[in-house]
């Protein structure tokens, strides 16, 4: 779906990551794979379970090669019983292991959501700070391509609503590697929302990223591209769309500052506030539905902070259309924000034609 032209544009976008001259290309898939591999090697307690993670090499090949390397004890194929295996994973975390529980897509996590929220997220608090739950729930989230309504929902808003969880939504390979390693090392339950369409995308990464101790902080956003006229905040796939829009806007003399949230919980308000105090205009972008979404939360936070007084115009949210995802290609395309939709929103917010 992503054309080579746009991919090149995305790569050439200025990023605040320290760039090294001899950069290597790393796909998101390989970044996740090496994150899991490195953490399993580093800590005996880490294991991965889920449907098809072992002998199939992963439904999306994220766990490729791991079963061959670590065997049945640590890479475990489960039956199609999400509630059961998520519960088993949480129980294993109660008893001191560090499970990575894969949901083939987060749509299926709804079958197990009680274990994620009531057993994982709340136990540390209910036990008054004794039983912490060092588990990672990971898998693809949100819209893919042509998979229709039951397989396209974004769960960012639902999971980030709950205290006790940490929720990460990475964009590129650097995010994927650094944040998954951070999630696995984290002593609290983490929901790690990947994106199927980004798995195959390669991004240039520095040697630092390839290091086996490369960890990114959870809860800190990244400025992908600095700008001064408008702030665009997005997470996951929408970051790519935002960068495309920023390039188009640059051609019109509008410099957009694109913020990649990286984490939904904690949500990095400080970075957003600082940026908006500079640009005075804000557009949020997400693929999920509008009601009670990530953009809604960001709007609320701006309203409750003195940054509100720095706004020259109301905040606009660019979101998926408030309807279940249709299958037909043109309808599906019309249901998700494209670069042109973000450009349109920015122009409205800036009051330009």
């Amino acid at each position: 779906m992503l054309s080579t032209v746009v991919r090149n544009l995305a790569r050439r976008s200025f990023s605040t990551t320290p760039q090294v001259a001899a950069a290597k290309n790393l796909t998101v898939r390989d970044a996740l794979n090496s994150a899991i591999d490195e953490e399993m090697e580093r800590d005996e307690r880490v294991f991965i379970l889920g449907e098809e993670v072992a002998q199939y090499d992963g439904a999306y090949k994220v766990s490729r090669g791991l079963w061959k390397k670590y065997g049945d004890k640590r890479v475990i194929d489960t039956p199609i019983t999400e509630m059961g295996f998520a519960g088993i994973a949480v129980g294993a975390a109660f008893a001191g292991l560090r499970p990575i529980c894969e949901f083939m897509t987060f749509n299926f996590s709804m079958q197990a959501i009680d274990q994620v929220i009531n057993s994982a997220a709340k136990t540390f608090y209910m036990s008054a700070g004794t039983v912490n739950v060092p588990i990672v729930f990971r898998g693809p989230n949100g819209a893919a391509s042509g998979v229709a309504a039951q397989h396209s929902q974004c769960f960012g808003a639902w999971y980030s609503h709950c205290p006790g969880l940490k929720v990460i939504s990475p964009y590129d390979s650097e995010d994927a590697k650094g944040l998954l390693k951070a999630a696995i090392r984290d002593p609290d339950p983490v929901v790690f929302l990947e994106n199927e369409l980004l798995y195959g995308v390669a991004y240039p990464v520095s040697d630092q990223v390839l290091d086996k101790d490369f960890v990114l902080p959870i809860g800190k956003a990244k400025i992908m591209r600095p700008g001064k006229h408008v702030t665009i905040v997005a997470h996951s796939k929408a970051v790519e769309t935002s960068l495309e829009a920023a390039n188009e806007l640059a051609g019109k003399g509008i410099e957009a500052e694109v913020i990649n949230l990286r984490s939904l919980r904690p949500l990095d308000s400080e970075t957003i506030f600082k940026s908006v105090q500079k640009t005075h205009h804000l557009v949020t972008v997400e693929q999920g539905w509008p009601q009670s979404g990530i953009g809604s939360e960001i709007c609320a936070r701006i309203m409750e902070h003195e940054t509100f007084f720095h706004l020259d115009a109301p905040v606009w949210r660019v979101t998926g259309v408030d309807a279940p995802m249709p299958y037909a290609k043109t309808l599906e395309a019309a249901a998700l924000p494209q670069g042109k939709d973000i450009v349109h929103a920015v122009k409205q917010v800036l009051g330009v034609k």
Partner: protein
Amino acid sequence: MMQNISRNTSKLLWRNAGIKNYATEATFEVNRPYKLHRLDSGPSTTVSVTRDEALDMYRKMQSIRRLETSAGNLYKEKIVRGFCHLYSGQEAVAVGMKASMREQDNIISAYRVHGWTHLMGVSVAGVLSELTGKKGGCARGKGGSMHMYSKNFYGGNGIVGAQVPLGAGVAFACKYKNNGGVCLSLYGDGASNQGQVFEAYNMAYLWKLPCIFICENNGYGMGTSAERSSSNTEYYKRGDVLPGLWIDGMDVLAVKEGTRFAIDYVLKNGPIVIEAATYRYSGHSMSDPGTSYRSRDEIQEVRQKRDPITSFKERMLETGLATEADIKKIDSEVKKEVDAATALAKSDTEIPVSELTCDIYSMNQEGDVHGLTPDKKLKHTTLKTAVNL
């Protein structure tokens, strides 16, 4: 049935110039035979117990009975709020099982767990104070009746059935760490029909997890009798290919022996499903008088004919394992302990309101916690030390 001592034997020992005499050990036949599912042989129907073990089990059952009575009273006085599910009548299950558990074994159950919490190391005061929501509670009052934890005891879970796969997960960790431990995963007849229970059975069997699934069948899931909730009420057979064992849950010795057998079994072979037939005197919870769906006669009959504590006491007395004086002494000590704990649970104070935002995360990265209004940011603090760091 309680008079079934024809094959009981005891070793008598004269003491104190013949004024007192007691046995140091006795052997009993279990009150009702075990029922087996896919097992060639089952636990022994002959159980030996020493005087010390017997007195200890009696004390423990009596402590649970008294502490539950106190909990019920505290609830009626409105000092305990919300949910309060009493274990009165079911004591033999927890005490018998604990008697066979070793240091490395684990247990998880649902919400009828005040007794288990005490058996797993929390003082009576710690349990009652948790019920009254005070700082002396084992979860500092933050959990309440359904969320009590201690070493190797993973609660205390409020969502019916969720604890079953969690328990299989704890068993998974035992096997992974190769620590020789098992996990007892308890649930009721009401929970037994949950899909996740079967999911847990399935994976435990495939992966040969040292998990003992235990259905405490007290005949009722809230107000719905077993016959009305379950198409198959032979809960020990519900594991299908998993072997199963039916035990008379009112006979503490049968439970003890059955659990010993099960622990031995699962360490070698993988999971087993136990059904412990038991009975609860109270309603489902303190909000339920427990008489709209069953007759008072039924409750009375169990109290008079099958009470786990009375029947065990009689066995001890008959065989000379204990004297009336021994029993009186224990009863009085237990009463004293529970009375003191009750007083403490009433007089203790709650944790300060600042602890509302304590221990949400073991490693907080969120900064301040959003309070009731945007201008009220609360501090996240950490008090206890997380055990899984």
